[in-house]
Structure formats: C-alpha cells, structure tokens
C-alpha cells in the first residue's frame, strides 16, 4: 500500500491521475526561489521555454542572462556570478549541460566550490522523438563522480519544485536532473522532502517486504505500479515489496538503503539511465561495503537511444512495469 504517512497523491493509480512534466516543477520552484532571494540568478543557453526558465525570465528579466547556444560559457559565467555572491541556476538539455560542459563544471563550479545549480531538463530515454543525441543517459554518472557536487533526481513535478527551492538555499554546487515528458503526479505539497533523505513510498500492509525496489526520477511511477501488481492476483503468487524514492543520489541516504536491504535481503534499482555509473551503481557501492545482497538493475544496458514515443522507448530498453516485475521475481530466486 502507499505509505499513509507521506500524504502521497491518492489518485496515483487512477486512469485520471494528473500528468505534468517534472521540468515544470523546476520552473515554478525557480520563480519562487527568485521571489525569496534577490541573489538568485538564472542563465540559459537558448532553451528558456523548454527548460521552463521562462517564468523566472518574465518576472525577473534583470536577473536573467541569455548565454546563447554555448554551454561551456553557461557553466563558467555562472561560476563567475556565484563568486560575487549570486546563487546561479543554469539550464539546458542534460545532454549539453552537463554533457557538453563537464570539465567546466568540474573546474569552475565544483573545484571552486561555487554555488551553481546545474539543471538538466531532458534526462533519460523519455525525451522521445528527438532521438539518441538528445537523450541523456549518462548524466547522473557524470555528476555524481565529481567531489562537492550534489545530485538530485525528483520523481514528479511537485518534488522538483521542492528540490529546486532546497537547492536554492543549500550552500553546495548541485545537479538537478529533470525529464521532458509528462509523468503522473505522485506526491502532494504535504509529502515530506529533504535533500539526502530517502522515503519509502510503498510498503506491505502486513509483514515484511521480500524485495526492496529503489527508484529515482521519472520511472518512480512505474516502480509503484509494479509493486502494486506484484501484491495483487492469486495469493500464492503475491510478492511483497517496499518501494523507495531515492531522489537524493548524492548525498545519498546510506542508512535508509542499508535498512531496506536488511529487511528484504534483495534489491532492484530502477532508473532511466545507463546501468553503469548511475543511481543503481551508487546503491551497489553502499551495499557491497555494508550489507551485500543480490541486486538487479533496471536501466539502459550500455546502449544509445533512438526516436520513438516515451512509452515505446521505455519498453524497448527494458524499463517498463513488466520488466520491473520480472527483475523482482529474478532477484527473489537468487541466493
């Protein structure tokens, strides 16, 4: 069942569940962050509308900088502004920022410890029709390996807004990973959110869970659907799971992950990212050292994407509900 303490969206499994792009929450959060602190500035590389920076730009044109199609400059100019006390948000498609400008982010933002939030608006395969050049499947790995750099991957638009506001007041450089396509609203304004704190969104009504599913970002809803389906049907076939929303990939909620693994002894990770180096790898690093258990990884298996609808692509690359369910069954059979 959905964790009743977290005040999640009661319509989450309904056909009429509202769907909003995760990036929209960033746009709203940035506007609010700008209202709360006059030091918040926004820089964009010719994608103001699709990255949703447009709300901020319209309200605070004097605090908005149009960089042009120049992502290396986007990162470095933002670092310079942060050096003068600004809280700089930079946005582009994740493939270009942090894809194109990784070294600039490492040297001038993280190495310098400057308050810049790198916002990658089109993370994952669900970018869709634009095709493989525009589908960032490596961005979480690229960012989480950099010292000083926090990484957050919200599961819906409401969480994205909260994450944006939290990152606007934290002192550290950060990467905020967003998705382009509309996805179901999972949380509510009342759902708790704190940087680096993971929450269990789904849990068995009674007894212990047999498998722990850890999901991040836009696949969270599919992870919850899989959990619900696994607990329905014939009683003898039912599998009890817990589903964790791991939006905070760095800092990571180590204790919550170990606690989950202790209970379930088996883990499935779910993310719209290469299996190598992403959130699943971060989970594996923790469990290998602290509480080794069998893990199955849902994600892209060392492949580039292609054009298609988000649903087609998620299925083709093995990240749909059925794949999550199969991974749960597979990990249950492992010793």
């Amino acid at each position, binding site marked *: 069942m959905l964790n009743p303490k977290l005040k999640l969206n009661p319509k989450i499994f309904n056909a009429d569940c509202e769907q909003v792009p995760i990036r929209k929450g960033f746009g709203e959060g940035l506007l609010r962050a700008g209202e709360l602190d006059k030091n918040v500035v926004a820089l964009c590389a010719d994608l103001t509308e699709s990255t949703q920076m447009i709300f901020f730009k319209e309200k605070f044109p004097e*605090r908005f*900088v149009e960089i*042009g199609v120049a992502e290396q*400059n986007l990162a*470095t100019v933002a*670092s310079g*502004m942060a*050096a003068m006390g600004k809280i700089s948000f930079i946005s582009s498609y994740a493939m270009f920022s942090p894809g194109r400008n990784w070294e600039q982010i490492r040297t001038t933002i993280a*190495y*310098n410890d400057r308050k810049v939030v790198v916002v990658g608006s089109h993370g994952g395969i669900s970018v869709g029709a634009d095709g493989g050049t525009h589908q960032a499947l490596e961005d979480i790995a690229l960012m989480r390996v950099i010292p000083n750099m926090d990484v957050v991957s919200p599961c819906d638009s409401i969480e994205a807004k909260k994450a944006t506001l939290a990152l606007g007041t934290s002192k550290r450089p950060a990467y905020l990973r967003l998705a382009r396509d509309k996805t179901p609203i999972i949380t509510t304004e009342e759902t708790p959110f704190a940087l680096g704190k993971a929450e269990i969104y789904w849990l068995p009504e009674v007894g212990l869970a047999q498998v722990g599913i850890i999901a991040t970002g836009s696949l969270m809803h599919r992870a919850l659907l899989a959990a619900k389906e696994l607990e329905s049907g014939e009683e003898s076939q039912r599998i009890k799971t817990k589903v964790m929303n791991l939006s905070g990939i760095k800092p990571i909620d180590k204790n919550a992950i170990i606690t989950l693994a202790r209970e379930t002894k088996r883990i499935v990770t779910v993310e719209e990212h290469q299996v190598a180096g992403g959130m699943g790898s971060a989970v594996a690093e923790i469990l290998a050292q602290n509480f080794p258990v069998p893990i199955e990884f849902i994600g892209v298996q060392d492949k580039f994407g292609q054009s298609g609808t988000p649903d087609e692509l998620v299925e083709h690359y093995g990240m749909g509900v059925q794949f999550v369910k199969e991974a749960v069954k597979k990990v249950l059979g492992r010793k």
Partner: protein
Amino acid sequence: MLLTEEKIKELEIKANEIRKSIIEMLLVAGSGHTAGPLGMADIFTLFYFHILKLDPKKPDWEERDRLVLSNGHICPVLYATMAHAGYFPLEELKTLRKFGTRLQGHPHREYLPYLETSSGPLGLGLSQATGMALADRMDGKDKDRFIYCFMSDGEHDEGNTWEAIMLAGKNKLRNLIAVVDRNNIQIDGFTENIMPLEPLVDKWRAFNWHVVEVGGHDFRTLNEAVEEAQAIYEKPTVIISHNIPGKGVHEFERDYKWHGKPPNKEEAKMALHELRTLGGKIRSEHQ
C-alpha cells in the same frame, strides 16, 4: 593612476625581485613553467603595486578589484607577486608544487583562499570574469571596481574563450578588462604555427571589444593602456600586451622550449646572476 619616475624605478626593482623569486621557486619545485611567468612579471608588478584596489591584510575585502588569472600555469609569477605584496611570507614560495603546499602546481582557491578562482585548464578565466562583471552590473557596482582577466594567447585556441568574448561584447561590459599575454609561444611551438591567431586585434574588435595594443615591459605605456581601458565606457576592453617570453634572462627569451620546463641548477645560477646584475648593468652581485 599617475605613475611618477620614482614609482617606475620602484616597480622595476620590484619586478626584478619577483623574477628572482620565480627562478628560485622553480628550481626548488623541479617542474613548472618558466617563460610565461618571467614574461608577465612586469604586468603583475604594475597591477599588484600600482593598479589594483586591494589590501593584502584583508584579502577578502568586499570592495577589492577582482583579478582572474585564466592561464593558471603561469602561477609562479602570481604566487611570487602575492608574496612580495604581503599576502604570505616569501619563505612559502619554496613550497611550490610540494605535498601539502598552499601553492598548488596550478592555483586552487581551496588551498589558497586569496585567489579569485582556481585555474589551469585553459579557456575558462574570461568567462568567469565575464560572470563577475555581469553580477556587478546587476548590483549597480560596475562603477566601483574593475574585473580584470589575465589570459594567454595560446588559450585563444579554446572555443570557450570566444564564447566569453562574444557574451561580454554583447553585454557591453565596461567594467571588464582583459589582458592578453601575447608572447607568441605555446607548448608545441610558436602560436602562428600551431594555430594562427592573427589578425588578433581585428578579431577582438569584430566581437565588439575596444582593443589597446601595448608592449609588455614598459611601465609607463602599460599604465597608459590600463588608463585608456578604464576610460572606455561603452565596451569591454582588451589590452593585447606584446610580451617577451622569458623576459629578463637572455638565454630563456623568445624560445618556446622554455614554456613548460623549469631551470636546472646551472641554468638557475646563470639566470639569477643575470637578474642580480640586471643583465650586466650592475657589476657587483652583492644585494
């Protein structure tokens, strides 16, 4: 700012001291760059002892001018100048590139907080300086201080440099002044053989910058160039300074082989002798 004959003499002596420090620290370090630091010694001296609004006793003074060193590999001249200006003891220069030092092989502001930025990877300084100048303009502080960026000619090969030049030109950042160390050398050879930059003046002008050309070793004309840059109101200014790499040590001058290596013991001895006698102008080596 007015530069008197007396002050020029003072700066000449100071620059010579800084050059000696550069040779001494590179010898102890056993690695590092020689030509660039010697070539920029006069400009660093002019800025730290005449131009910049700064207070070495209060390095984080909010109202200070900002100086971004983009080509971090010439940091021996930055460290030596800062030490001579009183930011830290001269003795510390001997720790250059050693384990635990504040004077990292390329500058890192986590280790030496007096730095405006870390640097080393080329092509990143001008855009950070552009960001600083933009922030100051947003805050209405662009009339109170200048943002300077020292950069190399070789790093014009980097696309990021031109992205910054375009953006600063677009935004007419009058509070931004770049100083290009036009010494014509980079690691693999002469710039015009590796990747021709000329006509460099025309290129900057085409990107809506005001351009001043100057020789890099005459304090009077250098000071005039900075005064002109400060007076330009509608554009950012670049001072393209024609510098002699290795300046001050005849053996090292104009030879790209000295770009990325330190002097050995014999070479350092020769260099220090030349600097102590000001190229033979002074007979006694006693200081």
